[in-house]
């Protein structure tokens, strides 16, 4: 089947097998290997990306279902060497060790912050329930998400709403988010 998908700002038109998962399309056909696969039951969340502004486990969606969508992966968050505030917060709070869950954690954290710009600890923990990490014990991930929330407060940079809408909105909005 023929699909057209915009991924990290670049438009692709491809013929794909109907059974191909979105994550397989991203990794195998587009070379977007920053998004990874950690399980086969949609439990680990390592493959989380944004589709039209909302987090999706890309192993639980067919590539053909993404036809006409805008997809953002962890590779599309920074531009000109500038990290997204959530990425910076993960680094500054030592929220990763092996780093395998990190792309999914970051994408899910952004979605969570779009829902709640100033989440308390329990809200963060529950918001990340679908993303597993085996290295960190989550403590520094929770801290990073709350730190990112502070960094993205009004006045401290773009508000969290913009993060939520980044994939659904125009290229201009996306660029603003990237440069935040």
């Amino acid at each position, binding site marked *: 089947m023929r699909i057209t998908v915009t991924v990290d700002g670049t438009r692709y038109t491809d013929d794909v097998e109907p059974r191909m998962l979105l994550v397989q399309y991203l990794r195998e056909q587009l070379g977007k290997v920053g998004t990874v696969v950690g399980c086969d039951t949609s439990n680990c969340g390592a493959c989380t990306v944004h589709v039209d502004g909302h987090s999706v486990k890309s192993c639980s969606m067919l590539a053909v279902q993404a036809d006409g969508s805008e997809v953002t992966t962890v590779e599309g968050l920074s531009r000109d060497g500038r*990290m997204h505030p959530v990425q910076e917060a993960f680094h500054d709070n030592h929220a990763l060790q092996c*780093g395998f869950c990190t792309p999914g954690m970051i994408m899910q954290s952004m979605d969570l912050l779009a829902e709640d710009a100033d989440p308390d600890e329990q809200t963060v923990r529950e918001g990340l329930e679908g993303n597993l990490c085996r290295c960190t014990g989550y403590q520094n991930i929770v801290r990073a998400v709350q730190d990112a929330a502070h960094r993205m407060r009004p006045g401290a940079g773009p508000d969290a709403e913009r993060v939520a809408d980044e994939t659904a909105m125009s290229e201009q909005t996306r660029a603003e988010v990237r440069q935040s």
Partner: protein
Amino acid sequence: MTATADSHAGGEVGQARLRKEDARLIAGRTRWTDNMSLPGMMHMAILRSPLAHARINRIDTSEARSMSGVEAVVTGADVADDQGSLPCAWPITEDMKSPNAPSLAVDEVNFAGEAVAVVVARSAAEAHDALEAIEIDYEELPVVLDMSSAMTEGSDLVHPDLGTNASATWVFDSAEAGTGGSADEALAGAEVTVHRTFRQQRLIPAFMEPRSILVDPTGEQTTMWSATQVPHILRLMLAMTTGVDEHKIRVIAPDVGGGFGGKLQVTPEEVITFLVARKLGKPVKYTESRSESFTSAHHGRDQIQKLSLAANRDGTVTGLKVELLADMGAYLRLVTPGVPILGAFMFNAIYKIPAYHFSCTNVFTNKVPTDAYRGAGRPEATFAIERMMDELAAELGMDPLEVRERNWIKHDEFPYTTVSTLTYDSGNYEAATARARELFGYDALRAEQAERRRRGDTVQLGIGVSTFTEMCGLAPSRVLGALSYGAGGWEHGAVRMLPTGKVEVITGSSPHGQGHETAWSQIVADRLGVGFDDVEVLHGDTQSSHKGLDTYGSRSLTVGAMAVVQAADKVIAKARKIAAHMLECAEDDVEFSGGRFTVRGTDTSTSIQEIALAVFAAHDLPDGVEPSLDSEATFDPENFSFPHGTHLCATEVDTETGRVRLRSYVAVDDVGNVVNPMIVEGQVQGGLAQGIAQALFEEAVYDETGTLTSGTLADYLVPSAADLPSFTTDRTETPSTTNALGVKGVGEAGTIASTPAVVNSVVDAVRHMGVQDIEMPCTPMRVWRAIHGGAR
């Protein structure tokens, strides 16, 4: 991004330096093995046995071979002459029984998940499609699953040719060894005895990155990329297993997504991919699914521990007897038989136990082989003795901390040689415990507990204690030799000064999340007086890091970084000679500090970077000095290191539902000197999560046919953020005296300490209701049944 979280006077070491590793990882700019593709690369898929024990009568691959895109279908018979037997490096006794361990099953399968055939195809999808077209005629054989019944007379056998399900029995007795008295005599004459049997459930390491292997046979060397903890061991063992010359093999561990012992292995999948790629002459990649990982990568723990403790009425322990059954699974993998033996040295823990007897029988079953999982032998031992100390305290009506203090080695008694022959160089159990008590609010929580009991609250409060130590820094080679291990315990390191003054550090350690690149840079920057960012740490490739014994057993810093320190010191010694020549003075008159060589008492100096350039030019070197500012060193530790700590856990147990809520957790660890406190804290937090997971959540469950029913992440409960609290962590610092850095290792501490702290806490919450033990994992059902008198 800021460079550092805080500053530390006197250099890099001790600073919470943010990690060099992160920039790529948070941007998705990663080199996981499965990310890699090579021109002409084929994809491999593996057909696995659905049966736990069966004879293979016939395999029909004809239909699969004819399918679109299929390059080859390979069965065990096809590689029977090449695959050898997978290595077991630890024959714990001379008469240990070890079955032949083919990578691809030839005529029988011994666990559900064992590899039976592979398809190599143009795409992974085509390879998987073709698997379904392979027909196998299996003849089912009796399945052996339970260790205890496997040891009874007349039991069915996993390997009938061995004549028994027992692989080996390993015994240590302090009376025979001359390190103490007889445990049996102590028990016979004891004022108090405590007897308990604990079950260490089977666990799955569950590293987040599934295993992946890519083999390129097109060069002069066959190159393997593998998601492994042990690239150096893997190269050696590939050579020894397949007969391919060692110098014709290169192994690379690129980015590796966690291991926890689960990637300390030479796997069937690695050997098969290696053989198949060489056979086809084309690059071949194999990446496992999570379900395959759970049913084929090695599991951990799985022991039955029978303990008897003798004590006086004042709480002084007078003897300990330990009898273990350890489940090997179907085959002996790399260090399978040695895992419980590592625990033999840790049952006496931090205590002065005058009589000790240990025996362990290793048992075969038709299950996935067990092997190292975070802590490997030490968590099992620590769990059992820390549970016993709580049981003794309950028996005597004493406070569990008081019983421990009565028995532990006092700070002024170090160095101390234990009943199991180890010499602990240092420790301060008093300081760690005092700090933990304070942070935890121990007395207030005890008061609340008493009040809740008095009121008869439906939610009861429990307080769990774990005062642990562990042997780290694996390992002194002579000790490993005495334990019949097949290799040494040294580590290799090298330091190369480049002409521009930058530094390459090569380490034989092979990190997979630990942060070696950052920590080693801190150490070398201080040692050589160069910038943190001027150091590049190379690892995980047998071509650049030609020698090493890799990462496991909390050995990287204590052994691996010590090799790097020694290499750096050799570089300084070389540079000093050249500096003296350049500065026209005697070598003894040259002082080295902060990267500068200075003529003593003058301001005449030169930098190590200037020397590096002068060495490159080599125009004016002293006679007999090579134009090289590189050095390497191999460090073999004299002794283990012994991190210790006191962990306190408070749980609230709902006596009506059996639900356990972790209320607070305090961990005070003493890991000696600290290179990077941020990394240390991260290791502790992650370790705690894994130990708590054993206590409350995780278990690999087999049904009566030998099918793993917890074979996916939907069934095997790796905790999420919502399942865990924030931990309070702190440290005391008692430097190790067994290495120049004064470090002890931290990778396994949290996991080892936390499991007994949590279970002690849960039992403590409901002990007044007649509960003496709750089997792990302490699920609501088990806790409820323990309270209400059902089966444990």
